[in-house]
């Protein structure tokens, strides 16, 4: 079975990016309320995190080209921005900090999975040329038949989200949940780059180096955040 994607007169990509933000933050709110975090903390954490996510998503993608400055959205930038937003918010409110952080980190694969559906419909980030089962054909500027990498990524990230959600609800030690989610997402993101159209078959591509840098920034942010909170509250964790 092969898939044929029609040409759209509107942007499924932009639509899915905005939908992913709403769904992701909605899920974070649900989780935080499930963890019995007060409405005030929930509201202002979302408020600050939305700002940081939007700002970092745009700023991380700024590039200077011959035609001028190019601005777009970066998923990796959004992820780091989300962590910064939660970081600042927990320092202000200091209420069940690891539960708040877990709620947002669990939502990250959900947002990514939904946004990737937009990529699949738009044709960007497509896979290598391929004509086997489930191959996807585009008729826009990406004309060609490719491996349905965006669809595969979307399914995998949504699966990771389901697993992460269950772990967040079942496991009391939220630090372990955060570590497990990072340990699943980062290799998936790294390996998927091997199937991308621009991968030349090298062991490590420039985009994979960017993924590694973003991963290092994310891990360092979480470690610094924990160290600061431990210093402020005098305890390593806010478990019950």
């Amino acid at each position, binding site marked *: 079975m092969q898939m044929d994607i029609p040409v759209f007169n509107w942007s499924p990509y932009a639509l899915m990016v905005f939908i992913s933000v709403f769904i992701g933050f909605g899920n974070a709110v649900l989780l935080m309320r499930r963890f019995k975090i007060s409405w*005030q903390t929930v509201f202002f954490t979302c408020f600050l995190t939305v*700002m940081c996510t939007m*700002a970092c998503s745009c700023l991380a993608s700024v590039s200077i080209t011959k035609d001028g400055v190019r601005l777009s959205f970066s998923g990796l930038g959004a992820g780091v921005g989300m962590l910064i937003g939660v970081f600042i918010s927990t320092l202000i409110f200091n209420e069940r900090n690891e539960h708040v952080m877990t709620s947002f980190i669990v939502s990250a694969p959900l947002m990514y999975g939904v946004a990737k559906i937009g990529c699949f419909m738009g044709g960007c980030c497509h896979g290598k040329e391929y004509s086997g089962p489930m191959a996807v054909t585009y008729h826009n500027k990406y004309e060609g038949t490719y491996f349905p990498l965006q669809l595969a990524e979307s399914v995998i990230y949504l699966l990771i989200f389901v697993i992460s959600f269950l772990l967040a609800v079942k496991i009391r030690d939220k630090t372990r949940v955060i570590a497990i989610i990072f340990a699943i997402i980062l290799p998936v993101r790294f390996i998927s780059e091997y199937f991308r159209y621009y991968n030349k078959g090298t062991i490590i591509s420039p985009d994979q180096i960017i993924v590694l840098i973003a991963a290092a920034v994310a891990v360092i942010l979480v470690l610094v955040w924990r160290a600061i909170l431990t210093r402020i509250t005098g305890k390593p964790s806010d478990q019950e």
Partner: protein
Amino acid sequence: MFCNSCGSPIGDGQKFCANCGAPVVQTHVAQPQVNVNNTVAPAPVKPRNKKKGNILCLISMAVILVSTAIIVPLSVTRVLDDYPVVGITVAMVYVAAIIAAYVIMVVSLVKYRSVLSKIMIVIYIVALVIFFIAAVIFVMGAVMDCGNDFVNCLHNF
């Protein structure tokens, strides 16, 4: 300790009630004073420093006004168009300043709860919502202009 608002039990170190979300007033555990008539006087409750809250509000507003007063003329006159690196740096500093101003305002509201901070946070939230709606319209508009090449127009996921 119990919540002053709804009466639910509150654990040590919690800053907000898990039930109703009301902030927990941290009272110093002072011994109730017994006067000569043997009646018990309530322990003193430390009042919030509203003046400090107002100062934080003013700092927040000053950050927004000053940074906007600098960026708007630069943007309108396009003097930095020939220096894209400087332009991007200025834009990044501006965004960081706006986020810092919002953080200061939230701190002012949460820690001090002054009237000014309550009014200003509503204005800040409305401004952010308007900005977000404008951004959505702008992005959608930019994408529509690009026709089928929308991904090339606005994408780097």
